[in-house]
């Protein structure tokens, strides 16, 4: 079962990939049928895979039958032993549902969205390939296999961001995503080395079993700063930061919106970017033993959360707003993990996957309707024209803002409560930042809604005349996701974070007794429970005032608080900062090294010099090859004499 779930997308990807080649040079009619076929194959495979995931969920997560399925040995070198194995426990089962569920919906949605594109099979192949790598990541039984999936999704992300490779911006964004992720991956790789040094193994079960012992050892021997587990955890977390676009390594995510919208929904909202959260939760048995690492996770998460939310308030590109929102929500998940409420983090991950995918796909539908316009300043007044999309966007926003009874309410509340209940300095910091971010979330969500759907139409008439509701094949998946966004919260609350939390997660997540944030979350004061709702409501009202009641207010406010506005509008100048600190100097250094260091010095003496010498030597050596037999025979005789002489002189003496 699990092998089918994991490998069906791979098979589909290969088939669709072959079709992409076959399509090359085929005539109109034929290529259309090839497109059709590739869509059928990939969607079918994904739906089957999703069905399998659901059955696994019932068996493993609800039934409590976690297991590891060994495929074969991969590397066996000395003490270093790695196998291809699929580890299936509650955490994996939940992720399976999320990944295959959202992925299958996105596949179906893409049929409609990519209708006009000329590279349908290639697109479907990439999507399925991505799904396979993601499944590989979440079912990994050891860190190396996880790294395989990790890099694989990075590759798929690169391919998909740059899917429209004729657009220079798409190429630049793809490269940026890849390079920034490289920083994170380097940390991840170092983290794996570090883990291997500590545990002599990369096998997850072995590590988990050995972690407590090593925690005590190192604490006694080393001072806190040099705690081995902390170093390992921090390095691994750097990897998670890169993939999950946390503060510092977040710059690639908004740019990644250059890819087709279904890609943004699948990869850059629902699944790949949550890999970091998943990794931290998966490695909870290790992270639990390092308070420093957990504190760092909390601070980074909380800071990202507020940071991204402030930026989202001023962006005008509809997809970028949602992208920064994603960044912010990932911050929530991380600080939930940071206060040891891993299950709350995963809970938010799950609900977020539904409503954020819904929002993205809804935004895609809007963009589709507006003839590929993404700037919200050129939209407005279209809610009557596309009522279904409008309603769905409402659902998504309500869930995002955490209004009951939508899914986001449950998960965001428990995250904030856990942060408060952690009763530590960083926990409290996270709580207040999260609260503030919740206010901003509500604000920018409704800002988006109002700017897009309400007010006077700002698009030209031709576009407005063309606005239409999306076809059923696009609306259908949206409805499914909307159902998830509405229901996922209260259906899963009890299992994920409520009363049956321990038996649901089983061994998948470890929380030490001295980290009781999640348990205490139930007993927080009432104002803590109510405050997210209140600030959410205030945010919505504020958005209403600013964008419906007094539409000239935003401009005046921007004028009054110009520095703050500019700061936010320019994304806190992080990109510019990186450009100044890293990119320019690197280019400068690169150019200097290239022109002076490499060109004159190294090339002159090194490659070019060596190449010259090599060529000269090569000519000489070739000249020895005269073609005369007696030369050759004589050469052999000289060889023998040399060897004997050498032997006599070196060893006989």
């Amino acid at each position: 079962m699990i092998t089918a779930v994991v490998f069906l997308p791979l098979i589909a990807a290969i088939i669709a990939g072959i079709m992409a080649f076959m399509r090359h040079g085929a005539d109109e009619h034929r290529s259309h049928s090839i497109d059709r076929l590739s869509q059928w194959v990939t969607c079918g495979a994904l739906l089957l895979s999703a069905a399998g995931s659901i059955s696994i969920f019932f068996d493993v997560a609800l039934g409590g039958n976690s297991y590891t399925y060994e495929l074969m040995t991969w590397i066996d070198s000395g003490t270093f032993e790695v196998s291809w194995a699929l580890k299936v426990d509650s955490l994996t089962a939940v992720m399976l549902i999320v990944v295959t569920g959202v992925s299958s919906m996105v596949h179906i949605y893409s049929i409609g969205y990519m209708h006009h594109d000329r590279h349908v099979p290639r697109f479907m192949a990439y999507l399925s390939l991505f799904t396979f790598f993601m499944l590989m990541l979440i079912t990994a039984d050891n860190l190396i296999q996880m790294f395989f999936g990790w890099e694989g999704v990075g590759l798929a992300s690169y391919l998909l961001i740059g899917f429209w490779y004729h657009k220079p911006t798409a190429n630049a964004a793809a490269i940026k995503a890849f390079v920034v992720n490289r920083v994170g991956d380097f940390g991840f790789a170092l983290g794996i080395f570090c883990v291997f040094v500590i545990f002599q193994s990369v096998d997850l079960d072995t590590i988990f079993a050995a972690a407590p012992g090593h925690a005590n050892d190192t604490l006694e021997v080393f001072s806190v700063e040099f705690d081995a587990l902390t170093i390992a955890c921090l390095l691994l977390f750097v990897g998670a930061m890169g993939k999950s676009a946390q503060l510092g390594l977040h710059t690639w995510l908004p740019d990644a919106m250059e890819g087709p919208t279904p890609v943004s929904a699948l990869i850059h909202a629902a699944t790949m970017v949550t890999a970091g959260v998943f990794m931290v939760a998966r490695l909870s048995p290790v992270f639990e033993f390092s308070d420093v690492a957990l504190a760092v996770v909390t601070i980074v998460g909380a800071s990202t959360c507020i940071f991204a939310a402030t930026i989202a308030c001023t962006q005008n590109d509809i997809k970028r707003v949602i992208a920064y929102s994603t960044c912010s929500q990932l911050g929530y998940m991380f600080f939930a993990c940071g206060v040891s409420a891993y299950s709350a983090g995963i809970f938010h991950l799950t609900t977020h996957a539904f409503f954020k995918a819904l929002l993205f796909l809804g935004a895609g539908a809007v963009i589709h309707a507006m003839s590929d316009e993404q700037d919200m300043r050129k939209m407005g007044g279209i809610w009557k024209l596309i009522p279904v999309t409008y309603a769905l966007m409402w659902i998504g926003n309500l869930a995002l803002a955490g209004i009951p009874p939508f899914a986001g309410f449950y998960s965001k509340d428990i995250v904030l409560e856990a942060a408060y209940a952690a009763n530590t300095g960083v926990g409290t910091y996270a709580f207040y930042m999260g609260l503030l971010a919740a206010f901003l979330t509500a604000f920018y969500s409704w800002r988006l809604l109002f700017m897009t759907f309400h007010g006077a139409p700002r698009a030209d008439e031709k576009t407005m005349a063309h606005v239409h509701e999306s076809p059923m094949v696009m609306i259908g998946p949206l409805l499914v996701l909307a159902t998830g966004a509405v229901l996922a919260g209260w259906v899963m609350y009890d299992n994920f974070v409520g009363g049956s939390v321990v038996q649901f997660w089983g061994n998948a997540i470890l929380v030490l007794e001295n980290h009781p944030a999640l348990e205490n979350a139930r007993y927080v004061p009432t104002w803590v429970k109510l405050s997210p709702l209140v600030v959410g409501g205030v945010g919505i009202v504020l958005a209403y005032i600013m964008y419906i009641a007094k539409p000239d207010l935003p401009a005046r406010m921007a004028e009054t608080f110009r520095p703050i506005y500019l700061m936010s509008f320019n994304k806190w100048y992080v990109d510019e900062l990186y450009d100044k600190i890293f990119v320019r100097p690197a280019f400068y250094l690169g150019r200097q090294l290239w022109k002076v260091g490499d060109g004159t010095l190294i090339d002159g003496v090194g490659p070019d010099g060596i190449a010259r010498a090599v060529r000269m030597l090569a000519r000489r050596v070739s000249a020895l090859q005269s073609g005369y037999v007696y030369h050759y025979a004589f050469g052999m005789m000289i060889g023998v004499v040399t060897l004997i002489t050498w032997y006599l002189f070196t060893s006989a003496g």
Partner: protein
Amino acid sequence: MPLSEMPNLVPALPELFLAVAILALLMIGVFLKSDTADNAMRTSRQIWMLSILTLVLTALLVLTVSGERLYTFNGMFVTDQFAVFMKILILGGAGLTLLISRDYLEMNSMGRFEYGILCIFATLGMLMMVSANDLISLYVGLEMQSLSLYVLAAFRRDEQRSTEAGLKYFVLGALASGMLLYGSSLIYGFSGTTNFTVMAEMFAHGGDYAPSLGVIIGIVFILAGLAFKVSAVPFHMWTPDVYEGAPTPVTAFFAVAPKIAGLALFLRVMTGPFGDLVDQWQQIIVFVSIASMVLGAFAAINQTNIKRMMAYSSIGHVGYALIGLAVGTETGVYGVLVYLGIYMFMTVGTFACILCMRRGERMVEDISDLAGLSKSQPLLAMALTIFMFSMAGIPPLAGFFGKFYVFMAAVEAQLYGLAVIGLVTSVVGAFYYLRIIRVVYFDEAGDPFDKAVSRPIAFVVTLSAAIMVFFILYPALLLDPAAAAASALFGG
């Protein structure tokens, strides 16, 4: 007169089968009609098919007989895990090269049934070499192989280059055989035996007999003879000329099977009877290895003919393989075996690609002729790229692992100089491998090659390329038998 006992034939079953099959095939070939050109072609094709079948059956027999170490024929013949591993490689290499040779032979009016028979004759000689446990049986096996190869090199007797190649190979090969015999006689003179087992006991540490200078000089001469057969520097001079002159399928055969057999013999002789004299011969092997790597890397750069380039490339590869022997330990031998296993597929695949270089009815051999291959035949270009990358030892392709294990063994034995020179020459070697890729992908396209790629060649190319790419997924398939073979060579 006492009747001696019948020798135990079971260990030599594959060889006996092969010998009998050769005689049978010869009869079939002679009595099949070949009076007209068409009939001759048909006969040759039938024998070709039967030869491959014979090799496959022999391989099956080899696997059946595999197991613990067995001696027979008065201790002159030995079979063990090591022999089995090597024989499978040799049979595989011979079979694959035979498989890709058909079209070339038929297209160049070389379609005569003796070709297949000579090929399997050479293979029989190689199997005997691998199983040799006596200086004389070593020599006999070697001669059977060499004699067949001489004829094969000159098989295209109406072409001047081919006959020249055959003659050169013959004259120099005879000289090398002479050296080998001279060394053997020295060793016999100084030790009084030709049997490896007896010798090993005699030279073992703690034995009452210290090896005299004569034995060592004898070893040097034997080394020279064997080095000629595997074309290690400084006994490599024949290689480029013969590789270039011989018909391409024959060159492919040369580059694979005899090399493996020669190195098998190297390993058997050096670690077996002279295993405890490792201090005495290690330096010589180190020298030969370094010289081969350096020459293979540097001399290949200037070549314009792809077969000639492959000749130097194979000289370099022998250098890398000899690193493992120079180490002289089980890890070293393990490295060599892995290297050879990968080398076999890599080389066969490359030559299969070379055999596709055909315009009209004419074969072309210049590297520059490959220009534009990526446009006219993208799949073939891709396969060739894979082989070149693999030869250059770029991970994650299989060729990387071959080098990796050998270098690791050298580092483990603290022969750092050897490992460093190996790395440096790999880099130099990458230069000319990558140059081919450059020509294939970036150079101005010339006339395209014929599109038609016959099924055997396509099969071999696909198989080899797949092995290169997917080796990393399941390396145990090669590594485990290699480890068993290496330990059999030492464990006894």
